[in-house]
């Protein structure tokens, strides 16, 4: 069984996009994070990206950095995340849970130990944001034979030739396309040429599902992306709700349902 493959297959048969939701682990508190993940999964998010806090997030916008620093101020680390995540795995046996992290945190923890823990906790994938094609072999060699998916990223500036290289050599996973030049964040408009870009990436990716993220905050945007890709990622908007709203879990529920069902 591979949860990632299964969920994309299931959604494809229903002709809907797969919803990947990001949360910074430890935002407000670990308890809050677990509650928020439950809300997300119960109301339409398919895959959870567990964001590991880091002190120097070079690819992220202000919202996610703020959440990350908040988590770090209560010393959230990989050990605490691994200690806490079991309950989510138990309650949601079908939903893929993938770890989104800056490489230094994983590297510091120990690469062997990290992937062993992922396997032990039955987590599904890893997305090291600053480990490009040039350096990825140092984890791919360790991941070999383990049932953990490596999720590669593609940027608007990635050449066609490079996309081919990125896609080849990965399996049982999905590809994360970055919609825009810039850091994570909430944007009103997505680039006009996104459709063509997604068509190109889909064509190269073949059977491997493609999701697109960065800047998404509306049902219409998610819907449009779902017409050209297999799913979409929302992070900053979720974190903005969590950080700024008075009743974040209620607002989070409404937002997730709006994105998924247009409610």
């Amino acid at each position, binding site marked *: 069984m591979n949860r990632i493959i299964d969920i994309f297959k299931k959604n494809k048969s229903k002709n809907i996009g797969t919803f990947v939701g990001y949360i910074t682990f430890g935002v407000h508190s670990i308890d809050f994070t677990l509650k928020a993940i439950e809300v997300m999964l119960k109301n339409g998010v398919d895959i959870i990206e567990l964001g590991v806090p*880091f*002190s*120097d*997030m*070079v*690819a992220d*916008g202000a919202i996610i*950095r703020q959440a990350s*620093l908040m988590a*770090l101020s209560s*010393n959230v*680390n*990989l050990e605490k995340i691994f200690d806490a995540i079991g309950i989510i795995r138990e309650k949601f046996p079908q939903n893929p849970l993938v770890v989104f992290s800056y*490489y*230094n*945190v*994983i*590297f*510091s*923890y120990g690469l062997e130990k990290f992937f062993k823990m992922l396997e032990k906790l039955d987590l599904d994938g890893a997305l090291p*944001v*600053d*480990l*490009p*094609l*040039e*350096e990825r072999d140092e984890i791919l060699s360790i991941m070999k034979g383990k049932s953990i998916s490596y999720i*590669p*990223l*593609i*940027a*608007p*500036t*990635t*050449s066609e030739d*490079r996309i081919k290289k*990125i896609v080849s050599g990965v399996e049982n996973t999905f590809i994360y396309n*970055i919609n825009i*030049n*810039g*850091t994570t964040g909430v944007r009103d408009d997505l680039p006009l040429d996104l459709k063509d870009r997604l068509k190109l990436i889909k064509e190269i990716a073949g059977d491997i599902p493609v999701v697109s993220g960065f800047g998404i905050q509306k049902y219409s945007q998610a819907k449009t992306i779902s017409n050209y890709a297999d799913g979409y990622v929302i992070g900053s908007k979720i974190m903005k709700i969590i950080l700024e709203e008075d009743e974040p879990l209620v607002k989070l529920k409404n937002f997730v349902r709006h994105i998924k069902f247009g409610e």
Partner: protein
Amino acid sequence: MKKSHYGIYGGQYIAESLMMPILELEEAYDKYKNDKNFLEELDYYMKNYVGRETPLTFAKRLTDFLSGAKIYLKREDLNHTGAHKINNVLGQVLLAKRMNKKKLIAETGAGMHGVAVATAAALFNIECEIFMGEIDVKRQKANVDRMKILGAKIHSVSEGTKTLKDAMNEAMRFWTNDPKNIFYVIGTAAGPYPYPMMVQDFQSIIGKEAKKQILSIEKKLPNLCVACVGGGSNAIGLFDAFLGDMDVKLIGVEAGGKGIKTGEHAASINGGRLGVLHGAKTMLLETFDGQILDTYSISAGLDYPGVGPVHCYLNDTKRVKYEICDDAGAIMAFDILSKLEGIIPALESSHAVFVAMEKAKSMKKDEIIIVNLSGRGDKDLETILKYKSEHNE
């Protein structure tokens, strides 16, 4: 070993969003680094704009005072803009011009790299934005004013440590917004490949000149070369020419701040662990969870939690020894050099001067030390006066 790596160090650990400009830079640098026209143009500006070559000054009174080895100072402080930074900046900006880049961005700590980039931006009529930590904006106000006069836009970075590391984070994020048009001029021998190599190449003129000069003056090679190490650009610049001369000892001096034991320092090689930051695998000051620590040094230019990968490699192979000088040592060297030689050194360079003084004492009178005087100390006067009033000097 991959060409982008120095032993286990270096590499290109950067988000995919920035790989296009980095690969493009790699290609452009490969194309131009041996290009006759490019090298001639760089040489022209080095001579006629920067004022190279810089002198190798025999520090006679300092040598007499210590009654040990002869101390020579490689006078990078006499470069236009007051430090070695301009050597690398002109190289990178001439490259940026050939790559048709529309805007230069740079991080800066002490402000010397920022001033050098703002200067080159004015000279070549390119837009320029400089990222500087809020604390550094305050403690290096004179350099902030210089950058503004030169026409650069300053971003004061108030996140995290509010120093060099966070300035670099913000510059990288800004770069992601428009990687096609922005050229990121990194000021030190750190960052993703090809930066460490490129910065080393552009700074290697320091050692090349020093070697030629000492051979002409003393008819022999020095016994020891000393330079301060933050990211390590002036140090690798001096060391490069001597790496193959195994009889020449090389010492890099890290900032000991208030002492390694206090945790308030910036000595990545002596007090750090292996990690990945700003595009390279290198020695870092970080927690066991891989979170980057606040660093401290009285000198803003050394106040950085990482170090150029080449230095980690040279430390492993034992070709270069990395020692420490704390704030107090740097201040002492600053005072002594000012009073004995009439040269006010940058606080960064004062760290190297201190270690050179210590070594000279126990060396023979016919032995020779070259110290890289990487910059001048005008920018540090406020910091020095504040330190002295706090320490009742």
